[in-house]
């Protein structure tokens, strides 16, 4: 006579089902290419994979559509990013920028948004100067092409200078920059003396 199999105790069945569900969940995550589900998680993962350390400076700008644009700066590298809706999850649309020693200018690839004096949102192209001289109190960005020259005053925010250009503000600064053939970045101390110039 065939011996009747002892049924599994209920707690064992629960444990088995949960373990199998977790295993299936892991397999789903694996076949879907290991999504991170959230923007910051995705950004951190990209930074970890590039051996990018804890950032020395972090800047966040408001851009159109209420999207936050983030710039992480470390020695030798800066990462610009913003959240981008993927198939199912929000990813980080991140770009890595190699930095030489000294100040460097980064373009914000999305149109920035700042409140005007009445509190209304005003669109503008934005630039960020990273690694400014320590004693820099002011900065001026001069954008020029064959026919025109255009100056923007910088605003110090922590360890960086931000430049908001309202005049040529129909699109993000990466496109904005294409209208200019060169730029000059000049830092001055608190007495207004020029202490450093960078051009490109």
């Amino acid at each position, binding site marked *: 006579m065939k011996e009747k199999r002892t049924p599994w105790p*209920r*707690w064992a*069945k*629960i444990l088995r*089902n*949960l373990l*199998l*569900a977790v295993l*299936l*969940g892991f*397999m*789903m995550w*694996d*076949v*879907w*290419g*290991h999504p991170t589900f959230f923007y910051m998680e995705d950004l951190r*993962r*990209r930074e*970890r*994979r*590039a*051996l*990018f*350390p*804890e950032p*020395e400076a972090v800047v966040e700008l408001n851009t159109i559509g209420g999207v936050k644009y983030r710039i992480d700066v*470390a*020695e*030798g*590298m800066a990462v610009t990013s913003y959240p981008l809706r993927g198939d199912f999850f929000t990813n980080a649309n991140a770009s*890595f920028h*190699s930095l030489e020693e000294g100040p460097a200018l980064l373009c914000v690839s999305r149109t920035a948004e700042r409140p005007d004096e009445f509190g209304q949102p005003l669109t503008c192209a934005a630039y960020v100067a990273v690694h400014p001289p320590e004693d820099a109190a002011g900065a001026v960005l001069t954008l020029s092409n064959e026919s025109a020259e255009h100056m923007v005053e910088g605003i110090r925010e922590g360890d960086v200078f931000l430049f908001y250009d309202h005049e040529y503000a129909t699109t993000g600064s990466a496109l904005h920059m294409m209208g200019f053939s060169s730029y000059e970045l000049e830092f001055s101390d608190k007495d207004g003396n020029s202490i450093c110039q960078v051009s490109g």
Partner: protein
Amino acid sequence: MSEKDWLDTATKKIRFRPDRKAVRRELEAHLEDMREASGLEEDAALRTMGDPEAVAEELGRVHKPWLGYLWRASQAALAGAAVLYCVMLGMLAVRPGYSYRVLPGMGLYNYLQTDVDMLDPACVIEARELPPGAAFETGGYTIRPERTVLRQVSGTDGPQWNLYIELDITLSRWEEPLDYWFALSGVRTGAGTPCGMHRMSACWGFWQKCGLEFEGLPEDAEWVELDFGYGQLRRTLHIDLTEEAEA
């Protein structure tokens, strides 16, 4: 009291329905056995079984419903996960470029069969194996140089020296390979920078292998240094190219 009423009363305090049904079946079978064995009438047999209210109290106390609900929830979770997995496999199977992922073990197969040395051996004129350099750890990655080969190859502009480095990398997180495009932050040689670089990488689980081929190495270069990472994560791999190092 009829047998049905007795069973209903005795099992009424078992809140989890599958348990109630099972216990009822058991009591029914027990009653049946008792009547067959002793020849008792239904009333007598029920009296022998005891007061149904007292039995209900005892059974209600023993059969906690939460374990049953948890069991049902675990079944639902498993069924949901299985359905979702099948849907996901179906979606990936029809998605261009993703269909290989649905095959179990494909990632491991790719990792094992990927040759990170991209150079055609036919164009190698001379090859010198060098000490691979010391392993190091940074940012959760353990980077072990497995092979370092200095080889003279026939290029379009005549023979040139290339440096091939094979890295075996252990990852601290599942399928989070080193992004060697950005992680390699600097390359220096004793006599200028090599002009070009080819890279190849394969990853599975916690393992990654990576091949780097630096082209057009200056002939008088005595060493090559590769910087990995930025800031406090920066580590340097020093490779000695001299004849003494080879020895």
